[in-house]
């Protein structure tokens, strides 16, 4: 059991977390956030292993990891 949460309104949609996720469980939102970006969302919670790679790569410190 693991998951991440993303602080939507800090996210700048850079995609580095999506690129880093070994389980490919993150993707971009359809909506745009307050600062104008498609933000990262955890699409497949059941696949998340809580490795924290997304957290390590996020330049805007938007991600929290739970395990």
């Amino acid at each position, binding site marked *: 059991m693991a998951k991440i949460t993303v602080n939507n309104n800090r996210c700048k949609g850079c995609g580095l977390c999506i*690129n880093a996720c070994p389980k490919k469980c993150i993707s971009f939102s359809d909506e745009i956030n307050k600062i104008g970006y498609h933000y990262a969302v955890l699409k497949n919670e059941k696949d998340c292993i809580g490795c924290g790679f997304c957290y390590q790569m996020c330049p805007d410190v938007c991600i*929290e*990891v739970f395990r």
Partner: protein
Amino acid sequence: MNKILSKPESLKDNPLSYCPGCGHGIIHRLIAEAVDELGIREKTIAVAPVGCAVFAYDYFNFDTTEAPHGRPPAVATGIKRTNPDKIVFTYQGDGDLAAIGTAETIHCANRGENITVIFVNNANYGMTGGQMAPTTLIGQVTETTPFGRDPLREGYPVKVSELLANLEGTKYIERVTVFDAPHVIQAKKAIKKAFQNQVEGNGYSFIEVISHCPVDWGKTPLEAVKWVEEVFLKTFPLGVIKDTTK
């Protein structure tokens, strides 16, 4: 489920002003984590540069001052000598550290000041729009080298870590990068060791972080981290360059 990773206490809640995907944010977080883990937040003082990190005082949740145009090593020297119990570090880009402030950098290192230097090498002047820096690669196109850096005209990339390793005053020098998660974890170890050295009074530590500047490189964040791995690191190989603390 327990929260295992989240924003360190040594970072404020303020949003970072860096471009999407910029390496500076990752490096700020690593410093903040190292400071938290060593329990030194109350006695840490940062000296910020000119460049994109000029607003570092808005992001770090400890005392931070600002010494533009390459002077952080001089200001850090003064702070550390008058407050030897504080943990003092400079945070500088390649324009600030390796061009504008070359003299301050070299003499501070040569004096062996007991400080920590975090050197962000992104191969150009980020804040001002992507001009050539001393660390720009041969052939790299920048605003001021539109046909690529030609060593016959602009000289060769300056390898600051190797240069400083020749000075007896320097104790620990490592080159790390943040283009993928395993390297970020390694970078954190090096940064933490550079702070630990200061806590133990070991002397001058210097961490060069090979970072990405997607916007001024004219790349997407994904293209930028790929370019670091495939091109940038060929000129700036990673690893411990000097360690006399063992």
